[in-house]
Each structure stands twice: as C-alpha cells, then as structure tokens.
C-alpha cells in the first residue's frame, strides 16, 4: 500500500484510538491491557482491509472486529480471577472522585458478565444500537442478542443491588 494510505491510516488511528480503547475497556470489563490488545488486533485487521473500507466506514469496521473479538474472548479481567458474590472495588470516601469510583464499580460489575452478554449490553446501551444492529455486528441471531441483553441487564441489576446493600 502507498505512503498516502499509510498516512491516512495513521491519522485515523490517532484520531479514534481513545474512543476505540474506551469501547474495548467496557467490552473487556475494565481490563485495559486486554482492551489495548483487542484494539490493536482490530486495527491490524482494519489495515488489511483498508483499501476496501477507507472511503466507506473504517470505524464501523474496526468496532465490529473489536466487538466480535471481545465477544469470543473467554478471558476474564485477570488471569485466575474467581467470580465472587460481592464486588470488591468499593471506593472509600475521599479515596477517589465519585465518577471514578462509579466507573470502577461499573467495570467490576461488567467483568462478572459472560463475554457475549457483556458485548450485547455494551453495544445496546453504550453504543445506542438497536437489537438488529447488535445482532448484525456480533453475527448472531436477533433472538440470541435479545436474550443476552436481557440476562446481562438483570445480572447487572442484581450486582448493583448487592453492592448497594453492602455499602448501605
């Protein structure tokens, strides 16, 4: 590929790196290193397809690859992590700002979901996509996506209720 295409690709990556990493971070339940790896893998695939998608929707392509990689990923937040009944990361008062604490709590809750449920919830509520769009992005039937989303939200509701009980 030519020099101009390389420069164009690098400009795109520099502009969208942060947004793609934020999506990756949610899709991996707050595992930033894993998110970075997935974003890099998605961008490598994007580079292979760059001549075809550069003029159309390169970000949509990268997000689709990222979401599918995350949904297939069986890794949890840390190696050797065991799911527990209670979310451990409850910020102490004055330790972190409220927003950061809330973010940490959210990521810890997301980390407890299976990858497909997490991907369905994140795409539906963070990306504001319809169920059919999520189904298309994940390459799954719409009924499956609906089921994953509903179960994921119910699980998150339960986790947050437990955390609030513990904190209260």
């Amino acid at each position, binding site marked *: 590929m030519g020099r101009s295409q390389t420069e164009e690709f*690098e400009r795109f990556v520099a502009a969208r790196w942060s947004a793609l990493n*934020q999506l990756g971070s949610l899709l991996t339940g707050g595992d930033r290193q894993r998110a970075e790896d997935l974003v890099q893998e998605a*961008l490598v695939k994007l580079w292979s397809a760059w001549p075809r998608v550069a003029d159309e929707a390169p970000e949509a392509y990268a997000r689709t690859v990222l979401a599918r990689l995350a949904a297939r990923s069986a890794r949890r937040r840390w190696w050797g992590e065991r799911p527990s009944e209670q979310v451990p990361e409850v910020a102490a008062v004055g330790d972190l700002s409220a*927003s950061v604490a809330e*973010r940490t709590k959210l990521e810890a809750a997301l980390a407890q979901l299976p990858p497909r449920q997490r991907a369905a919830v994140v795409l539906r509520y963070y990306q504001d996509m319809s169920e059919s769009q999520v189904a298309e992005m994940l390459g799954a039937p719409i009924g499956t996506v609906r089921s994953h989303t509903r179960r994921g*939200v119910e699980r*998150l509701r339960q986790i947050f209720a437990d955390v609030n009980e513990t904190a209260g």
Partner: protein
Amino acid sequence: MDDFEQDLIRMLRQPQEPRPFEPRHRDQLWAAVRVRRRARVRRIAAGSVIAVAACAVGLVLLPRAVDAGPGPTGPGPDPAPTQVVPPTPTDPLPQQTSPGDSTSSTTSRATTSNSFGASTTSNSSSSG
C-alpha cells in the same frame, strides 16, 4: 426503559479521560502488522508448496497408471448369454396324442429299428 437502564446508560457514557495514541502504540501496531503479513506470506507459501507437491505426485503417478492399462480391475468380458428355450404353449402335439399312444409308438419304433431296420419300423408304426 426503567430507571436502572437509564442509570446504566449514564454510567456507560460517562466521559472518560482521553488516551493518546503514543509512539509505543504506533510501533506495536506496525510490528503486529508485519507479523501478520509474514504469517500470511508463510501460509501462502506453504499452500503453494503443497499444491506443487500434489501436482508433481500426480504427474509421476499418471504415466504409470496409463502404461499399466486397465489391469485386473478393468471390466471383464461379458458373460455369454444363456440360451433359454422359451416354452411353446401352442404346441398341439402333447394334447392331441394320449400318453399311452405316444409311449408305445416310440418304444415300438426304437425296438423295431434296432432289430429289423427302418422299413419295418415305419410299417409297425403305421399299423399300430
């Protein structure tokens, strides 16, 4: 959409600290691109080698197969058709002569031909 779902949306879309694309990210990205390209070239090369090897084996084996001819596994000659004499239900002879007459005439004909010759036989048959 209930309160919890709206709260979930708010938490998910909370603005985050931007993460800049650093030189180390750039280096890692291009290194990964090179690794992928090398792996792809290796895969294509391996596929080509396998295809060439398969063609070579085919070219070596094909002349031998042609020289050997059809071999024992070829189709054998067709079996000779068995001559089946169809029954002649319209033959009037058995129905017209009685079994007793037929037997006696045959016996007498055989006997007379052996003992006295053909003329005697024909006479005996016609007289009986």
